[in-house]
């Protein structure tokens, strides 16, 4: 019985225990409004986590994800506010995200800068670029409109909140991509051992490009959900530590940072735990900074456990793999 416990199941178990514990111990945790907000917040984290999972499985990481999300969506809203057609604006934002994904991909696959480093610098540069040329103000508000587009983040469909449906759709598509498509399987091979994958004849570099383009597009989708649920986009989000929450979700769910392992299911499990935890802490009235410390310590613990369960293989670990 014990040896069938893996990280995914442990985390699921803890989530269930926490959920029961909070339901019994915290007033208002089980109320309809709270569960709704929990699910909504978690959905956004889940969408971002699903994107990040593609990168982590391919032994990469994308720290520029939140910057991409914030700047592309804020730019879209600025354009819509200036009278551009919604779909044209969306198309341009999509193009922007794809270009960022391509730049990330080129830097990582062709220039061979370590992913973690390239995307860190890209995050800073994207934010700087957006603030200098695309978005003037800190907060951009969502204009009023009739299109169903504006309901993505706030409405319901058959009684289910739309963000949850969005998360489910993204998760399903990514799951199908990872499990059944050729390039998804290549992604696992690259994450498992890049050099072996290369020798086998897998187009390693194009697949890595694809990873970062997909991540950027998913970041854009997550941004649309955020903007339509809170009716605005705050660019200062790019300076926050949200991207680490995303990594937390991925690592906690059991996708090893050394790549090649895990799937969308792990992201869902990790999302559940973090969602319940954040919600509980908010109800407990812990300050934002205290929550940050708490989350970080959990992340640290998750990385320690991850390192112990998936020790780095000195033979395949690349030199300079920091």
């Amino acid at each position, binding site marked *: 019985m014990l040896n069938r416990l893996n990280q995914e199941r442990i985390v699921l178990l803890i989530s269930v225990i926490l959920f029961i514990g909070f339901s019994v111990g915290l007033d208002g945790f089980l109320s309809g409004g709270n569960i709704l907000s929990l699910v909504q917040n978690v959905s956004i984290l889940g969408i971002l986590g699903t994107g990040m999972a593609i990168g982590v499985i391919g032994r990469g990481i994308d720290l520029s994800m939140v910057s991409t999300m914030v700047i592309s969506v804020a730019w879209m809203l600025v354009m819509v506010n200036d009278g551009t057609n919604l779909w044209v604006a969306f198309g341009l934002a999509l193009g922007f995200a794809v270009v960022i994904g391509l730049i990330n991909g080129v830097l990582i696959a062709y220039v*061979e800068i370590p992913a973690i480093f390239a995307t860190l610098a890209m995050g800073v540069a994207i934010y700087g670029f957006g603030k200098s040329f695309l978005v003037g103000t800190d907060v951009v508000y969502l204009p009023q409109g009739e299109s169903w587009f504006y309901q993505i983040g706030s409405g319901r469909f058959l009684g289910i909140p739309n963000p949850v449906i969005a998360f489910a759709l993204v998760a399903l598509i990514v799951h199908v991509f990872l499990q059944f498509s050729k390039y998804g399987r290549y992604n696992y091979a690259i994450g498992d051992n890049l050099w072996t994958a290369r020798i086998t004849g897998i187009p390693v570099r194009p697949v890595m490009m694809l990873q970062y383009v997909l991540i950027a597009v998913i970041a854009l989708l997550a941004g649309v959900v955020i903007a339509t649920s809170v009716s605005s986009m705050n660019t200062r989000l790019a300076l926050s530590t949200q991207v680490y929450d995303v990594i937390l979700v991925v690592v906690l769910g059991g996708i090893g940072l050394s790549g090649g392992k895990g799937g969308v299911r792990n992201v869902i499990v990790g999302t559940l735990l973090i969602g319940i935890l954040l919600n509980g802490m908010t109800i407990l009235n812990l300050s934002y900074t205290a929550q*940050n410390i708490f989350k970080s310590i959990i992340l640290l613990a998750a990385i320690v456990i991850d390192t112990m369960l998936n020790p780095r293989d000195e033979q395949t670990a690349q030199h300079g793999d920091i």
Partner: protein
Amino acid sequence: MAASETWAKWRYRLVPDHALGEILSKNWIDTLIPAFILVLVLIFFGTQMPNFLSAANLNDIGRIYGEYLFIAIGMTIVMMAGGIDLSVGSIFALCNFVSLALINYLELPLILGIPAVIAVGGAVGLINGILIGYLGLRAFLTTLVMLIIVRASVDMLLLDYAMIIGRGFNASLAWEFMALGNIFGIPSSLVAVVVVAVAAHLVLTRFRFGWHLMAVGGSRRSAYNAGIRVKRTVCATYVISGMLCGLASTFYAARLSSASAGVGLGLEVTILTAVVLGGISLGGGRGSIVKAALGTVIIILVQNSLIRMGLMSGASSLVLGSVLLLAVAIDVRWMKNRSKILARSYVSPTYFKLPPLPETAIGSDSPYALNDKLRGVEAIGLGELDGPEDMIFDREDNMYCGSRHGDVIRIFAPDYTRIEVFAHIGGHPLGMAFDARDNLHVCVGGMGLFMIAPDQTVTKLSDETNRSWLSIADDSRLRLADDLDIAPDGRVFFSEATVRYEMYDWMVDALEARGNGRIICYDPKDGSSRTVLPNLQLPNGICVEFEGQSLLYAETWGCRITRYWFDGPRKGQRDVVIANLPGYPDNINRASDGTYWCALCGMRSPVFDLAQRMPGFRRRMVQSVSRDDWLYPNMNTGCVIKFDKDGNVLDVLWDLGGEAHPMITSIREHKGYLYLGGIYNNRIGRYPIPDADPNWTSHDSYWGELT
């Protein structure tokens, strides 16, 4: 001579092409990139901003620079051991808070306060160090999480105590000096950081800890296998980084007394950009304090000037992010392609014209005419020897030769079938000679000149000579000691084939046709070595003449044999004995009838002779054709010649078909037989010399018969 050839001759004589490759192979070459960027930055802002270079501005920048450089040095140390420390910004903020609390608010004396602050920084560093060093976590994520935790802690502390701390004030003069003081006009923080930087430089380059650190960064696995305590070394780097953050924060606290939440925000990206721009490699093993200092100067000038030019925060983070990406991209590509660039630019051919190739055809009246005298010579140690470049005999007729495995082999007389390892030195033993007291002197490729006493003890005689002043590459170390001979007074003259290539690349030296080799004299009286004849074209065989005042040396690529007088009335003079050999001469040794033997290890070909006159062609070949397809001199066939002291060729011995002795590198006459060695051969040949003195030995010829 055609005009173009005259032009080529002078162009390659006057332009020192080889300097480029030698500069590129220097370790400090990486520093030139940030130095160049710094010059660009200075020119740009110096012309764009009116008071950029004013004393006040420089003093301000210098003060901030001092604070930054502390942290950059810490980051450099961490990165050179293969890690990264992103938590520096938060540690800096925490230590700033602690400084203000202890020194400003509690008014602790500096002698207690500053060490306490440093200890706080070190403690956070220790947590990083334990997690990364001992638990083996990934440095990037761990320090990133640490960044968030410490930052959040500082925010919570500020929330509760910012007001109280802000009211504190320490009136001590030392504290004020740290804030505003100058020593000879140089800001206090800058003076302090220079002291730390010099200490750090010394530790990294001269002390055991620094070497361990570089080893861990260069190759963690090898460092572990070499017995270095990898975990402890890695852990220590984070502690040092934390402590330096603490030290930096005391200067900052003294200067600004600011307890705002913005202190140290984003500092980690700035410092990281600075050191990577300076050329500290991600992944470790490469870097220096000087590079970190250069990178930090660039970043601080750019950042400071952008703020003064009134750019918004968005633009400055765009610049920072782009500069960081560019710096890392240059670093990664440079690291990957450095050896390729070096390989392309290192080989630098020059012009060299040989006289017309002498005739060697069968039946011609040339002294070099082909014959079959070496066919079917007796083989000694067939299949047991590997690379006997030279061989020699002791007074008991035992034979000694080298092997590719780094041994000197002894083969026992009289039947030469029993073989033992006489001494193990480690490098490939090449030329050999006995001195008057029966000590065997050996030139060892890649190592230098060694002596083996009859009781088998090995002594290193020389592995360096005087450095020539104008050489860019350090030519004091011996790369390829080749052959030697001993003068009657005990001085050892030995040749170093080339100073530009290692032993495994010796044939590439032929493509340069430049005098890269030299003859060195080792004097046993004081143990010194001095270069006596520089700039020779692969000097190889050396033989002291019968009169004991001069020596003959062969220049392999020059295809000539020259006499050099080291004693007597003509001391210091040189004259050419044979100017135009049909092949590439190797070792020279005495013959029983007062003449000399010389082995030709390869034969000239018209194609290669022509190529030597076309340096541009050889350069293009090296750059665009793969190494295996380069045109090399022909080393697949050779012969032995006998010549007298006037340069008349008396005899020539060929092995037609070249099955037994394709490349002959050495010959030794002993009691009526001629022994043949080859550096790539698996045997020693034994050829009975017609009409030779059956009692003559070279040992007696040099040192007299035993009485």
